Structure formats: C-alpha cells, structure tokens
C-alpha cells in the first residue's frame, strides 16, 4: 500500500493553511460518550485517500476508570505517520486489562493519554484542490456536490436534477476519509458536527453508520436497500421477474435498462409502471388463470409441481397413443423429434413449458417390448455438447449368448441350500384353502389382527396407539416412514401474508463484494452478495416471524445481521436448513 496521504500533498506551514482546512480533532459530545471506531484497515485503494485524520475515543472530562484503559488502543497518526510513511505502532506498550490501582499504571496511562492528545492536536493538512466541496441540504437530507466528484463516484452517490449528490452516510464516510469538505450554511463542518447532524436522521443512525463504515473500509460496495424493489406476492406467483427481463429487452428500451441477469429493479416508479402493464398484457390469460390460486401461500414449488404433473398427464396420454409395435426391429420406432407445434407461440404463456410435450414421443421401453432400436433423438431436445445418435442393438443381440446358464454342481447345491430357507406361500395350508384373492387378503388381515392383539392392551387398546405397526415394519426405511409425522416447513411458507404488518426489523443495506468493483455499475448494480440488517448487540434475536419477513423481502439474496456494539461489529446469518434424512442403514 502506498503512502496513505499522497506524497504530493504539500506541507504548508500551519499559518498559511486555510483555516477551514484545519480539521480540528473533535471530541464527542459529552452526553454521548461514543467509543469511536477508528478506521483501522483498508484493503485496496478504492475510494479517496486514506484519512490522515485519526479520531480517537474521547478522553473527555470523565477520563477515569475503564475509559483510560481503552486509551491503550488509540492510534497515532498525523504528521508522525507522514514522516514514517507507514502505519505507526501503538506507543503505549502492553495492553492494560484492569486497573490495579498502582501509581505506576496511572502514570503509564497518563503518558499514553498525553501522547494521544498531542497527536490529536496536530493539524492535518490537505491540499484544498484535492477536496471535493459539498453542501449539506437538511430539507432533503442529502449532500450536494459543488465541485466534480472524485473516484468515489464509481460506487457512491447519485444524480438528481443534474446535480451530483451523496447520501449522508456516504458524505460522512468521505469526510472522515479526508476527501470531502462539507459546508453547512457556508461554514465548514467538523467531523463531530457532521456526525451529529448527518446521523440525526431516522434512516441512518450511528449504528447503521458504523456498519456502513466498517464494510466500506473492507472494500465492499454498500448501497441502501430499497424496499420498493421487493416483489409483490402476485409478481412472485406469476414469476414476473424473469418475464420482465425478456419483455423489457424486446419491447421498449429503457434509458437505464437492467441487464437480463439482474434481479434488482432499481427503477423509479414511473418506469416501473409501463413495464408492469406490458407484462400484464403479455401474460393476460395467465393472470386470469392464476388469480384463482388463493393468494395466501402455496409454495411456488408446489405450484410448479402441479404444472408439472399436469404436463405429465398430458404426456402419458400421448405416450399411450404411441403405437405398440415400437420395439419391433423392422418397424422404425417413433422418432424423438419435436412435433410441428409452434414452440414460439406456446412459449408466450407465462408458465408454458419449454417443450410441447404433446408432440414429443418417447420410445416404448417396457420390459415386454424388447427395445433394440432407438432412432437418433432430436437435437433440439438435447443439451448443448451432448451428441445424440441412433442406436441399433440388433447386432449385439446376435453376439450375446442368450442360452440358459449351466450351473456347476457346487453352485446348484448352493442354490438348493438357499431355497431351503425360502418357503412358498403355496405350502401354507390356510393359504391354499383360499379360493380367491379376497379370501387371501382377508386371511392376511385376520392374521395381522391376531398379532396386534398380542400387543399389550395398555398401548394398543387405547385411543392413542403407537405409531409403528410391528407387522408393517418390514425394513428400517418403512419404520422411519411410519414414524415420520412432523411436517417440514419452508422459510418462505406463510411469509407473504406477514408483509402487511412489518415489524421494526428491516433490511438496511445491499452489499456487493469487493472484487466486483471493477464491473460494478451504480445504475445497474445487479444482485447483491448479501443484504444487511443492522441491529444492536443488546437486541433480541429476531423472531421466526421477523426472519420470514426479511427473507421474503430479500428474495434469493442471503440476509446477514450486522450487530454493532460500541464500534465492534459482528455478523451472523440465520440460514434455512433441511437436515437430510440418514437412510444409510
């Protein structure tokens, strides 16, 4: 990593530096003794140059007790850093873990604090032309740039009415990085003021900013989550998303069209409307058809299954109509070809299958149909890279010895021995007395009942009996099947009906991976890597209900919970899981 502050920075005598550029180190408000999280690490050089300004936790008026101890973590910065051209080491030696009451420790801490004050008191100097000027607009809650944006524009900011703007958290981050100079009422803001003013809004609390800043420092691209991108349940059911993409592509070119791969819909409402209309027109009959599906949850997979089985029936009907002489050698079997059905026309339906199954014939491979000739399949039905060819096994059949196997003496004895342990039901006298299936089944039933009544009545003679019927326990798989009574659930089951009364928990950020920066486009950010919910460490773990809500909103992007605790941030995710059945007995 190169020098954090570019070497081109001219070190002017303090007296000549503009007063406004003396970014005073500011103390947090006494009423809010924040433990500031100093930007510690930085990977890559994505944004503006690394701050020469280092903030520290405030050794305020109440600098006794544990606060002193934390002072050990402080970082030196400023001119020392410039001189040494590398990250300064902590100068205070070993970390103190608890006050031991000794004068020695007090002295060490005092020295440490003193040094810190010294460092903080140093003036940070920046070239005025390196700073982007910006103005805080409290009415809109945004920051408007007055001079052209720097490199950060690639991943931050937005344009409105021809102006370059920043969200408060972005402006504050850039301010801390030393690449922005923020004015409010024509007076430059200090970092402390910026913290107080920019983070006073509902949307962006200190907690949120800490998470934002943490992720930014690691190189992630962090955008605010826009709830309007959440698909409605109707859209989901119709699977509009994919259709939107294709229809958008073909029909009207948007100024900022999202690529087909994107699942984000970062459009303004005005743009959304015509698109929605377009899809409604397109899938008109489907809308009608699906509207009868009750909106309250039917998992998508289930619906698909229904569609599938529907098609399956069709298919089986057609395959029944396949001529029965398929297998005969000289009669060519039905080809694997697509029918003449207009595939394109059928694909306009929302859930129309890719193939028209009524026109696809499958060879009859029933065991009584010796199938030795398979015509070459239609290439359209095959995946790419998979060649299909005709198969004629007739020549093989001639070469294979199909005579009955002749057993050795030993083998025959073995077989006889084994057969001793097997008994035919025909030797069962009671079975032989049965003259038809009905009687035989009645006999079986009677026998099984006999066995049940051999079970003790305190278990079997009650209203609630054991789940397992001993006579049905033919294998362990069967046992497992009989005792499996609890139904598995899916994280999205019932989630759509929860969207009306959203709880306090909401998604805050879309996060994109650091290595995606090169390809990243603000206008078309694509699918985020994860979405973040910011919470305090003291809060309760969200209920299943809240989890379902955020998961539903997030779609197929994983949700991560960012937990901030006085500047320390931990991330956890609660992922859906299905424990596989262990059938390997």
């Amino acid at each position: 990593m190169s020098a954090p502050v570019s070497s081109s920075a001219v070190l002017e005598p303090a007296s000549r530096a503009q007063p406004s550029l003396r970014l005073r180190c500011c103390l947090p408000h006494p009423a809010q003794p924040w433990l500031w999280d100093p930007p510690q690490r930085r990977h890559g050089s994505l944004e503006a140059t690394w701050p020469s300004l280092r903030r520290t936790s405030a050794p305020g008026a109440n600098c006794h007790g544990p606060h002193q101890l934390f002072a050990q973590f402080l970082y030196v910065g400023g001119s020392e850093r410039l001189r040494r051209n590398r990250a300064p080491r902590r100068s205070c030696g070993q970390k103190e873990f608890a006050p031991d009451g000794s004068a020695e420790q007090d002295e060490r801490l005092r020295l440490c604090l003193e040094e810190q004050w010294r460092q903080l008191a140093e003036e940070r100097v920046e070239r005025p032309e390196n700073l982007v000027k910006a103005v805080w607009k409290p009415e809109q809650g945004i920051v408007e740039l007055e001079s052209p944006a720097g490199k950060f524009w690639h991943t931050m900011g937005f344009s409105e009415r021809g102006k370059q703007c920043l969200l408060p958290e972005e402006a504050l981050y850039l301010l801390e990085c030393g690449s922005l100079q923020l004015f409010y009422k024509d007076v430059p803001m200090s970092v402390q003021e910026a913290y107080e003013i920019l983070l006073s809004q509902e949307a962006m609390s200190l907690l949120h900013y800490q998470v934002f800043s943490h992720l930014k420092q690691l190189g992630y691209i962090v955008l605010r989550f826009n709830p309007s991108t959440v698909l409605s349940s109707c859209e989901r059911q119709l699977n509009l998303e994919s259709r939107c993409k294709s229809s958008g592509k073909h029909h009207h070119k948007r100024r900022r069209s999202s690529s087909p791969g994107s699942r984000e819909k970062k459009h303004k409402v005005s743009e959304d409307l015509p698109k929605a209309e377009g899809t409604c027109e397109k899938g008109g009959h489907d809308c009608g058809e699906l509207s009868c599906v009750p909106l309250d949850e039917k998992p998508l997979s289930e619906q698909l299954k229904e569609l599938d089985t529907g098609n399956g029936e069709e298919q089986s009907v057609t395959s029944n109509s396949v001529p029965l002489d398929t297998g005969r050698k000289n009669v060519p079997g039905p080809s694997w070809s697509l029918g003449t059905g207009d595939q394109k026309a059928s694909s306009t339906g929302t859930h129309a299958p890719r193939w028209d199954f009524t026109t696809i014939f499958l060879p009859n491979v029933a065991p009584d149909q010796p199938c030795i000739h398979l015509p070459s399949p239609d290439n359209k039905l095959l995946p790419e890279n998979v060649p299909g060819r005709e198969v004629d096994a007739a020549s093989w059949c001639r070469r294979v010895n199909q005579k009955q196997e002749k057993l050795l003496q030993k083998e025959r004895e073995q077989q006889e021995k084994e057969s001793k342990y097997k008994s035919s039901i025909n030797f069962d006298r009671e079975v032989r007395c049965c003259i038809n299936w009905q009687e035989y089944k009645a006999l079986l039933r009677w026998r099984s009942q006999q066995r049940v009544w051999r079970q003790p009545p305190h278990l079997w003679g009650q209203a609630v009996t054991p789940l397992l019927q001993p006579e049905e326990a033919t294998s362990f798989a069967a046992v497992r099947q009989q005792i499996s009574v609890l139904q598995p659930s899916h994280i999205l089951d019932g989630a759509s009906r929860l969207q009306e009364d959203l709880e306090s928990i909401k998604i805050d950020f879309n996060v994109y991976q650091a290595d995606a920066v090169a390809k990243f486009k603000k206008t078309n950010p694509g699918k985020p890597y994860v979405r973040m919910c910011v919470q305090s460490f003291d809060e309760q773990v969200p209920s299943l209900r809240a989890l379902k809500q955020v998961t539903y909103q997030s779609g197929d992007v994983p949700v991560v919970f960012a937990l901030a605790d006085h500047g320390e941030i931990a991330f956890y995710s609660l992922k859906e899981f299905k424990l596989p059945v262990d059938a390997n007995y």
Partner: protein
Amino acid sequence: MAEAAFRPPRRKRRVFECYQAPFPVGAGGGDFRMCRADMVNNSVVVRSPEDVERLYNKGYFGKGILSRSRPVYSISDPSLVSKWQGTNLNMPIITSKKYQQRVQWAKSALQEQGFDSCSVTKILENYTRPLEFPFLEKENTELSRQSSIDTGNMVTSSPEPQKEVCQKASAEGDLATDPVVALGTEEQQPAVVKEAAQASCQKHGSHVHCGCKAKGGPEQESCNVAKSRERAPEYVLVQEEEEGSLCLEEGSAHEQEKFVKKEKLVCRRNPFRIFEYLQLSLEEAFFLVYALGCLTVYYGEEPLTILKLWEIFSEVKPSFKTTYMAYHYFRSKGWVPKVGLKYGTDLLLYRKGPPFYHASYSVIAELVDDNFEGSLRRPLSWMSLSGLNRTTVNASKELMLCYLIKPSDMTEEEMATPECLKRIKVQELIVTRWVSSRERSEQDDL
C-alpha cells in the same frame, strides 16, 4: 434465500464397535420384543440387562447411570484383572481398599436401619468372611457338588418363590445364591434407585442379609436378580496382602502359586452391591413407547398408557412437548439425538450414534404459533446467541434453531395428546457467523 450447506458429520477416529440397528425393533417384525422400564421419581429406568443392552445397542437410547454413556460399569479393577490373568476365575477382582470401602458403606447402611454397632460388626464379619471357591476349579467336582447341596439346604429354609432362583443358579453351576440376599435386593431396590436417580447417589442395593431377613416377602423379580448377577456380582475376589494366619485358611492350590508375590486373591461376598441401570431421558422413553411401541413404562406395577405418559412427562418437564417434538422429528430422520446439556442446548444430533460420529448439530427447540411468534422458552439476545455459537463452533458443531410451528386452531385439548404432532411443522435454521474480512471476494471461498 440460500440454504445453509450440509456439512458431512465427522467420523470418530477410532471405532470399537459395529453398528447394529437404528431402532430396537427388528426390521421385518420378527424380532419384536417389549422392553420394560420403571418410572422412578420422575425418571425412567430400565433394569433388565437384556433390555438395557437392546435399547442401548440398537439406537443408543439412554445412558448408564454409573457410566458416561454406554452402561459398562464394572466393579472389577482392570489393572488387577490383567495382573491375575492366569487365574481365569471369571470373577471380578478388586483391591482390598475398595473392598473395605464397601464394608464401610454396608456398615453405615445397617446402622441407618437401626442396628447397634455390635451386631453390625457381627453381621458383617459373618457375611464378609473369606470363602473358598472350589466350584470354579473344574477338576474339583466334589466340592462343587457340595456347594450346590449347601444351596439346596438354604433354599428349604426360605420361602417358596426363592426356590426358582436358587435352582436356576445352581443349575448354571454358578455361585450359590443366597436367597435372603436376593430377597433383600428386591425389597430395597426401588428406594435405592430412587435415590440414585435423583441425586445421582451411587449407593445402590445394599445387600445386608440380616436386614432383609426381617422383611422377607413375596419375590416377583427373582429372575431379574439372577440375571443381574453379572452386572453386580455377589462374589468378588479381593487382592490382599499375605498374612500368615490367613494363608493357612486359604488352602487353594491356585493361590499358593501366587504367594511368592506376597499377594493373594481371596473370595469374599460383596456386602454392598451397586447395579448399573439404563436411564432414559423422557423424550427417549416416550419415543420408544409412542413411536415404536417397544417399551412399557411401569409406575409401580401398573403399565402406563401413552396419554398418561404424555401428561406425566409434560408435568415433570414443562418443556417436554417442545423438546419431544424436536426429538421425534430428528429421530425419524434417522439421526440420534442425545441430551445437549453439555453444550447449553436441548439436543445434540449424532449420525448413527455417539461411538461412530462426533455430534454434528447442537439444537435449540422452540414452539411458536401460526404467526411464528410465541413466548419462547429461551429468548436469546444476540449477545447470548453469539456466545452459544462460539462454544458450539469450537466443538466442531453447528448451532441449529428448530422452530416447531403449531397451527393457529390447535387447542390445549389437542396438545394434550401426542397426536398433535401430526399437525406440527418444523423449521430448522442454522446459525453461522459471517466473517466480513473473509467474504470480501469470491476467490476467498475457493
């Protein structure tokens, strides 16, 4: 929403046993056997050695009350056994110190029963005097016969039902059973088991013949006792320092070879026997009864019905319904759930069984209503969850939250029977820490 990936369970490096079956019911129905358990002071205990073995080996149900997991407690000192390998006496060997300890226990037990110290000493002296063990030496048939005659004599003096036990014992060519002792066992067992289960007190069957004589009554489980002899043998070999006077009394040819070592084995009766039983967790017991129907839980002599058990267990353990649902769900998926107390959770999930794999998941079960809310048994803050996750991950397990979702129209009456399970849905979640510095780029994943 991406699903959490399944991580294959980790095999244990050394496996000393082979896998028998996932459930104690035979596949094919042929091997069906009813096991018996007793409800003793809110816990479920299996006593019959066959049942213990069956339930533990096939599905790893329960734990031995004197062992960490598998019921393998043995009084015998393994180092002494290997030392006296050549003797081949088929009896447990213990040190003299250990034996004296047992005598002490018996003494205090007798004193508790109200005997004065004089008679206690006398009783014990008589009971623990060294015995010859001729019946174990095959060449000495004469003595063997004599011993069984002895037994017969004693039988005649005891009440009717004991005959069976003793005859059985002598028929097996084993040690003569003192019927009085056997009787005492049965009289005292329930109380003692109670104690053991409750306070994990290891004091068990204190078999002091005198105390029992007075109490002599009908004997129902003499067969059980005869069988359980293997687990808590009446006769033990005590390794003692050689003393001149004792040496003369111990005339066994076998022993004289060992005398060079100045140590010998003396056969004595164990005055204080301890039985290893299998204790089933409430979930395990209910599963065996309700799901498999292969266990009957008795309260006293009365077999309990499924509904009764559901009621009793829910009373004993308020969270029983929730934990049982989770238990049942995972069992029916072929996993072996065990108590997760050591990891601060409800269940641990093993593949196949604890001897084969390390536990893969540590599970917290919660019952929620149709709105996916409800008063949680264990409301977790992120703080406690991260602590729990850390301990779990450090033990190479994953933390799983198992939500049991009951439909909104499920009433209390419906919950009062285990049939409510059929309407419960289960949602599993895996908790993972997301490490921000590691997820920066795609390459890091590879």
